[in-house]
């Protein structure tokens, strides 16, 4: 049993390596990565900066850029190459799981950069504890995963036209940020639909309100909710994508 698991892990690693290898040679990552780097560098162009405000901003940036990376990574392989890869892998779900994980790995690297860069360049005027660093890193990664989970439904697998896919994704991404004001603005039964949007604003609000000392239920709940949202979206995505192929 243990041997089978190790074999599966090795196989998954090779699949991720293949996808990242192909994506790295496609240069499709250049635009989203350049945008990410420029925005992070510009946002820290002067100091000192407010710790949580700055991290809330870069976490939101992660949300948008990870979604873009997801769209571009999913489109990197031409359709026939994709068919052959799935045929050799023998499983549609594994193929797409490897794609999602590959985007997650890039997202993790971006999260590390967004969190560590201002620390090593001394951009904050307040002390930063390990607890904060770890929590903020998880927060950045979670935002990245939220973006990926949403973007996966706007890839060519579901929406053939790139313009419709990208436009639809951008609309949902933007709409999910001002949740509270939209909820108040829309009439009562309609505003309930907003709950299907990624829980971005709740997570940002919880982070803003954090006393930076204790990790209580008020802080954890929105994060656990976001993690559950990511997991649910991934399960739905992998189930639907298998049916569509």
């Amino acid at each position: 049993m243990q041997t089978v698991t190790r074999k599966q892990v090795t196989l998954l690693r090779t699949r991720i390596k293949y996808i990242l290898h192909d994506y790295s040679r496609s240069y499709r990552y250049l635009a989203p990565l350049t945008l990410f780097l420029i925005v992070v560098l510009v946002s820290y162009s002067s100091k000192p900066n407010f710790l949580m405000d700055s991290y809330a901003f870069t976490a939101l940036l992660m949300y948008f850029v990870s979604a873009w990376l997801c769209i571009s990574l999913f489109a990197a392989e031409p359709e026939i190459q994709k068919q052959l890869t799935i045929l050799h892998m023998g499983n549609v779900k594994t193929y797409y799981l490897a794609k999602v994980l590959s985007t997650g790995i890039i997202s993790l690297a971006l999260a590390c950069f967004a969190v560590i860069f201002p620390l090593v360049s001394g951009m904050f005027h307040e002390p930063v504890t390990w607890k904060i660093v770890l929590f903020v890193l998880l927060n950045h990664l979670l935002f990245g995963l939220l973006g990926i989970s949403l973007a996966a439904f706007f890839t060519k697998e579901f929406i053939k036209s790139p313009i419709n896919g990208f436009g639809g994704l951008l609309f949902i991404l933007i709409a999910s940020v001002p949740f509270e004001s939209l909820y108040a603005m829309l009439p009562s039964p309609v505003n309930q639909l907003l709950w299907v949007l990624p829980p971005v604003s709740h997570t940002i609000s919880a982070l803003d309100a954090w006393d930076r000392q204790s990790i209580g239920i008020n802080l954890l709940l929105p994060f656990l909710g976001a993690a559950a949202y990511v997991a649910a979206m991934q399960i739905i995505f992998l189930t639907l994508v298998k049916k569509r192929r």
Partner: protein
Amino acid sequence: MIISLLSLQSVQKTYKRKTVLHELSLDVNKGESIALLGKNGSGKSTLLKIMAGVMPPSSGKVTACRPDLVIGYVPERFPKALRFTPEEYLMYMGTFQQIPKTALNRIITDLLERFSIKHARSKRIETFSKGMVQKVAIMQALLTKPDLLILDEPLSGLDLKTQHELLDIIQDLQKQGLTAILTFHESDLLAQAADRLIVMKEGIVQSDMLLSQLDKPQIEAAVTSMELSVLQSWPGVHRSAENYGVVTFYANLEDSDQILLRILEHGGSICSVNQLNPIRKLISTAYANSDEKAGDTIENTD
């Protein structure tokens, strides 16, 4: 004894309410080389994709003779812009197939040698010529030593030299007992590549026959200054007749050179010679419909 490797029973495929394959039933027998003919949109590629497991049928059953039947698939348009070297690409695909690394290295080296692209093993496929890309396409299908090889237009768009080179490889594999099914446009090469012909039209099998059932290629010739009785006495000449001094006759293509030479030696004059090739006729019939019905073709199916 005939062993069916793959059996299709009442297979139907529908795309966006358009039925591309209609209740199609077919057996692919061990050791056969099947050429699949038909106009664009007749459902050839869809049928091959279903056989290869690239897509499931909308209804019907595809049954393999055993659960571990290995199928290799070469798609119609193998991506030209692959960003890997052949070695990298084959290594990845072989690893996905869970071939042990040592065995995989050996298989890849053998394939690179067999397909004469060892010199380009570390060059990216996107820099390759069409013929070389097609070789990689076939190589990836052979990685797992398949029992059944499915090739969708393997020779299309290649120069004559590469066509013959690939055909030689396919023939070698067939001699080793590999079962193959391929779509084809090249009538001259068909007889070398297939022993069974299936003609498809609008998603159904229009005809299914063995190549041996077809007549051999013949010539139809008209000559003058030649006695009918003399000509009739020669071996290889058949269905001869005389009309207003013109003698017409049929002969097998393989005997034709000798017979025509003999006519000239006997003082006869050759008025006309037509080659009658039943395979070419069959292919032109199968593809001629494509011009008439071009408007009926369904996009993205073939």
